[in-house]
């Protein structure tokens, strides 16, 4: 029949409208609240626009957000041994590591990190440092809200990277 294509099109758009309202109803109050909600997965149907400040996406594990320093989950000591493999691997020289021998000879930790900086402002996020790390210390985190007001804040020190690592490991 002439005009069935038009009706079919109208049916498609109507279905989309109904579907968005149906999904809206399921997560009714949250979507319209102004406070931020927890990280979430992206839906692929219905209203899939992420309402950013209120809704945030959880990034996938391979996402290159920022660097983190991991700790040993049992002892709570950081994994970094100040071996400088990451510093050597970095093509832009944005990582600098300094370490010293642990004065406590009995400790399991032979090397202490005295200084570890990562200059995020000059980093190209290639991940060679993470690949180079032999001791499961340097990893990518999934955070992406890295904007700062001052360029100096782009330089992450060891404490901050450990803190981010703790957040990523859920501590």
């Amino acid at each position, binding site marked *: 029949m*002439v005009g069935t294509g038009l009706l079919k099109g109208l049916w498609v*758009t109507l279905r*989309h409208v109904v*579907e968005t309202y149906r999904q809206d109803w399921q997560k009714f109050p949250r979507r*319209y609240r102004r406070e931020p909600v927890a990280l979430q997965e992206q839906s692929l149907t*219905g209203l*899939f626009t992420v309402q950013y400040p209120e809704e945030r996406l959880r990034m996938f594990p391979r996402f290159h957000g920022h660097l983190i320093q991991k700790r040993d989950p049992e002892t709570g000591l950081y994994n970094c041994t100040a071996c400088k493999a990451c510093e050597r691997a970095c093509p832009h020289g944005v990582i600098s590591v300094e370490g010293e021998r642990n004065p406590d000879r009995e400790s399991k930790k032979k090397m202490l990190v005295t200084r570890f900086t990562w200059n995020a402002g000059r980093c190209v996020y290639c991940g060679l440092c993470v690949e180079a790390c032999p001791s499961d210390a340097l990893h990518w985190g999934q955070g992406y809200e890295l904007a700062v007001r001052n360029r100096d804040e782009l330089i992450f020190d060891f404490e901050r990277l450990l803190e981010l690592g703790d957040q990523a490991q859920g501590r």
Partner: protein
Amino acid sequence: MPSLNNLFGFLQDWISGKLSGFLPPWGVTLAMMAITIVVLLLFLVVTVMYLTYLERKVLARIADRLGPNRAGPLGIAQPVADVLKLIVKEVIVPARADVAVYFLAPVVMVAPALLPYAVLPFGPRMVPADISVAVLFVPAVTSITTLALLMAGWGSGNKYSLLGGLRAVAQKVSYSIPLLLSFLAVVLVTGSLSLVRIVEAQASYPFLLAQPLGFIIALICCVAEVNRSPFDIPEAESELVAGYHTEYSGVGFAMFFLAEYIGMFTVSAMLAILYLGGWQGPLLPPYIWFLIKVYLILCVMFWLRGTFPRVRVDQLMNLSWKVLLPLAMVNVVVVALVDKLGLRLGFLPGLVASLVVMAAAGAILRSRRPARPAAPPRRGWQVREA
């Protein structure tokens, strides 16, 4: 709820009663006229503001989006922000503009768009002037906006604007004819050009049931009359930048915008009055019923906009002159015939006749449709079948 049903009539009596205490009769008449005009204008401006909001919300939902939701809760302050932005914006006059025409066009656009509200009945006693030729009056005054579009197109001194204005004129002239012919069918049955009488004639059933074909023709023509998508070729972004209002900014653009949305409300109100039974309906007060019907048609117009791509100029003209005009004429004849036969079966004979005509038209259009060219051979990488 007799008091709610006649709320506005009661208000009218109360105010005029108060006024007659210290004003002569002609003063009361003048004051009541002024009050009516102010109330209607306020109603229209607020309606237009929130029509844009409604439209954006509906279109957003069609496109799986949320629509405006930042300004205020659920984004309800968005229209206010838009209006303020438009008012504050600088008015820029193009160097080659015909200044007098350029500045007159928005005024000529808005004034006739407001005129139909003098005769549109919102309820039994809610019509400023129940004139006997209202069905003719409304299309007559709204078609003055065509002139404004041409003035805007000419006055801008811009070829895209001029093309937009010319297209608008061609389109409005083409679509007025089937529109008026389908209105004629309603008038034929009612025997009156008064909108109030037409609404009263639909007490038992709305004319939509008796003349579905006429309603469809009128709906298509109304969408085209107010230059709405899919018939928005006078302002086709991909071809003409923004058509006749390309060179307008600030308040001038706001006037065009206002007139366009008032026009949408007008044609929707006309369709609601002529085909959906106007204020007739159970339980709720009549003006509520009227607004429900008008907003229903407006939502259908948004729905059409969200669904269909824009037609080409030749397709637009073909649809009007080769399809809608003959169908509207057949509709008039069929409606007249059914009415003359005087079968006491309510809307059934009209409905059946309309469906028969639509089926026949569909068959004719289908048979005249050029055969589709054979699909070209597929190119590129293909799976070879074993």
